[in-house]
């Protein structure tokens, strides 16, 4: 039993190391995100997975797809940058809009906020996989599914025999 607990702990810590390593390598606090809404259709649909980078020296330019969080909210939003105004010292303010939305995102920002800044950015979309993120959405909408999945995984690891 001691061996099986160690085995389980190794698996969990390896997964954690890979995730943390990814955060360091990409520079983003959340290098993999799931698209939650249809506001970027037909490019991205709800359930698609996005891979992000957030290198400090990467400039933000019009046309890029960025993932950002509005101050005080936890939900990452995936939209396109449509306007930037950058000062010589690198301070930048920018406006975003979902491809599938009629209007820009000012309605989503904080009360009185008209522009986003670098600090609001979680990362830039560099690659994507369709549908794969659906698992996360299902687990959020149907928590029983999440517990069932964790129970099955736990049971599998504890019960499997090493030959």
């Amino acid at each position: 039993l001691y061996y099986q607990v160690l085995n389980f702990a190794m698996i969990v810590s390896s997964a954690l190391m890979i995730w943390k390593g990814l955060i360091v390598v990409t520079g983003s606090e959340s290098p993999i995100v799931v698209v939650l809404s249809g506001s970027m259709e037909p490019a991205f649909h709800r359930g698609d997975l996005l891979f992000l980078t957030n290198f400090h020296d990467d400039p933000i330019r019009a046309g890029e797809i960025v993932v950002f969080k509005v101050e005080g909210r936890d939900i990452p939003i995936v939209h396109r940058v449509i306007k930037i105004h950058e000062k010589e010292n690198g301070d930048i303010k920018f406006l975003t809009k979902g491809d599938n939305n009629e209007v820009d995102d000012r309605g989503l920002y904080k009360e009185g906020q008209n522009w986003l800044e670098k600090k609001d950015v979680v990362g830039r979309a560099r690659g994507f996989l369709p549908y794969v993120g659906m698992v996360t959405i299902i687990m959020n909408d149907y928590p029983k599914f999440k517990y069932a999945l964790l129970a099955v995984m736990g049971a599998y690891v504890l019960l499997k025999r090493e030959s």
Partner: protein
Amino acid sequence: LRKNVEDFTGPRERSDLGFVTFDITADILNEKMSIFDWNVKQLFLYLSAEYSTKNNALNQVVLWDKIILRGDNPRLFLKDMKSKYFFFDDGNGLKGNRNVTLTLSWNVVPNAGILPLVTGSGHVSVPFPDTYETTKSY
């Protein structure tokens, strides 16, 4: 890819607002290879204006965009298009600005994989006049 434009400006509250009309002729196929390969789902085309002002060293404003899906007609003949979005400056930097550059760029959206952003080669410079238009039907 070619574009040509004419323009005039008008002040709104305290910021300059620019109006630009343009033509775009684009041919996405060239003889041997289309940009629509097996892994391309759509192209997101956009026309952006880039310029410098006293307030801001770099400004970029997307004036117009279009989504081209796989299977759509790959040739574009757009004439006398008006900008889709308001071309506001952050201040009064458009007045008399001789160096506003319009560039066409596009985002290739694959079925799965990397998302490249490509800027078209070639761009058009649009000088803005020194005076404001006070009334204009647009």
